[in-house]
């Protein structure tokens, strides 16, 4: 073997290896293979004559009523969309909110929810941060407090983390469904459901940010006699605020997205209008609300991107 080949082999042998990563790679491959095999998906059914007839009927129905059986005309279609946007549909049997109203309510839900979630997440971040939720936070040396005190702090840490994990593991949609049963139909279940899931996520992200703060300034404050609450309010929050805000806007984007569907449970907003139109077989109206939802998500993404850029610069 030449000297160069030996070097290459030595480098190859010394490459970083992780058993966990290797198992993960094999695990992913196995999981995907199993899932496709175990799903027993009926591809033929998807292309059957029955499905095709269904699809053709659907494609005919998504055209605005004024255009049934006629060639496509953008002018007529846009006129219809404008009417939907300003006045919706008022029929004897059922009503559909105007596009504007649906957008306004859905946007308000997402904002109310993320403001609540941001506040809860901010407060929960400290008892969920290992650096703060400990008996002798930021004090030199260790184990000054009694065993009982230390255990109480550990219990608080684990309890907060567990609660955050639980509320974020249950999807917003299920939270909203359960809360409608408990609180009745109003915008509250949707707002609280969105707030719960996002408070869980924001609390976790904010806690990680707090844990990663440089401890030197915080220790100095503690040495100067500041309490844990004072350190949190006057040192930790100001220095972590930019990060908190970045996460806040990132979660707001997902909040807007989720808010477009929560209405399907019966709360009057975009999702409600969309689902109602589907149930009544008015697929053209349904498509209108789908497009409204897409528009709202796009606006949310745009606003969030602008806000995040401004925060990064500040």
């Amino acid at each position, binding site marked *: 073997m030449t000297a160069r080949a030996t070097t290459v082999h030595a480098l190859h042998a010394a490459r970083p290896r992780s058993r966990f990563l290797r198992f993960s790679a094999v695990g992913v491959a196995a999981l995907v293979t199993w*899932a496709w095999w175990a799903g027993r998906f009926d591809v033929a059914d998807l292309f059957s004559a029955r499905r095709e007839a269904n699809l053709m009927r659907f494609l005919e129905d998504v055209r605005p009523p004024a255009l049934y059986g006629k060639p496509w005309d953008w002018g007529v279609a846009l006129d219809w969309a404008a009417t939907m946007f300003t006045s919706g549909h008022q029929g004897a049997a059922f009503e559909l909110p105007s596009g504007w109203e649906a957008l306004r309510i859905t946007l308000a839900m997402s904002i109310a929810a993320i403001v609540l979630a941001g506040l809860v997440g901010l407060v929960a971040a400290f008892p969920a941060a290992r650096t703060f939720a400990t008996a002798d936070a930021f004090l030199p040396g260790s184990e000054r407090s009694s065993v009982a005190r230390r255990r109480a702090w550990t219990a608080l840490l684990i309890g907060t983390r567990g609660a955050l994990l639980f509320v974020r593991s249950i*999807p917003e949609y*299920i939270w909203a469904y359960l809360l409608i049963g408990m*609180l*009745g139909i109003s915008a509250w279940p949707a707002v609280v459901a969105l707030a719960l899931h996002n408070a869980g996520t924001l609390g976790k992200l904010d806690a990680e940010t707090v844990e990663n703060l440089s401890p030197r300034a915080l220790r100095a404050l503690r040495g100067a006699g500041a309490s844990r609450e004072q350190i949190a309010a006057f040192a930790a929050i100001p220095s972590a*605020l930019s990060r908190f805000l970045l996460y806040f806007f990132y979660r707001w984007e997902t909040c807007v997205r989720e808010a477009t569907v929560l209405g399907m449970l019966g709360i009057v907003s975009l999702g409600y209008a969309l689902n109602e139109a589907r149930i009544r077989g008015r697929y053209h109206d349904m498509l209108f609300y789908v497009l409204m*939802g897409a528009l709202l998500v796009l606006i949310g993404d745009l606003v969030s991107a602008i806000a995040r850029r401004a925060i990064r610069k500040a």
Partner: protein
Amino acid sequence: MARSPVMRATLAIPRRPPPIRARGSVLLAILGLGVWAFLALDLTWAQVIPTAAGLRQIGEFFSYALRPALSYQPGEVPDGSPSLLVQALLSARLTLIFAVTAMSLSVVIGGVLGFLGSTAWWSGDASGSRTAIGRYARRTVAPAIYATTRVVITLMRSVHELIWAVLFLAALGLNDLSAVIAIAIPFGGTLAKIFSEMIDEAPRDAADALRGAGASGAQVFCLGLLPRALPDMSAYALYRLECALRSSAILGFFGWETLGYFVKQEWENADYDQVWTYLYTLLLLVVLVEWWSSGLRRRFVA
């Protein structure tokens, strides 16, 4: 010793904006919008304070949090149904199947569209191309492909997976594959967006070295750029699997027999202990994947 005003000015520590006030306008805007949102929704405290009957129901529901059902109550076993725990496992299995198959599709979609939607494969010095056609392709065709891809990605992503599912239900009817595709479309769009950003933001050191050594464009991309972005990309994909599990669970509300289907059914039957059984099953699935993805991230960072 008294200092002259000039001395004081030069000795002063450079003034930095007070930490909160610099971002104060953003905070104020958020609070203002929050107030507007609560007003726009007509939210009153009276609506959240439950009635006596509501309160009893809430108490009953949460009282089962620590004692979820492990089997059906005698006499209440649904006809032809396996035991409760087997039913929970079966619905967890279908939830996992939908999530994993949808994610495998969206990783492929996200990989292809993420590549086309990144600037790394075409931007740079167009005169480096050897032929006139190559230069033309880089100056006009490539940016057009890039722009089209960005639009497609945005459209896929801006419609929620539940809305895709509802659209497929209306257009095709209930089929397991349409559930998978409904998740795969928006998730593919999201992965494409994040992948393209990761590819563009990956360190260019290895890529530049390879280019300097005379490697072709494809070699530079596959051997220089992709390996630098791959750890972040796979960690993110695993995180999205966690989201896919939740989405797959709520598809149950539309007729597919995933975890959400049974949460809804048992809630309607007022069998709250069984609702908790399914909620904890979902929690377990999500926690397992979260543990896996955080382990992966830790090992990539180290």
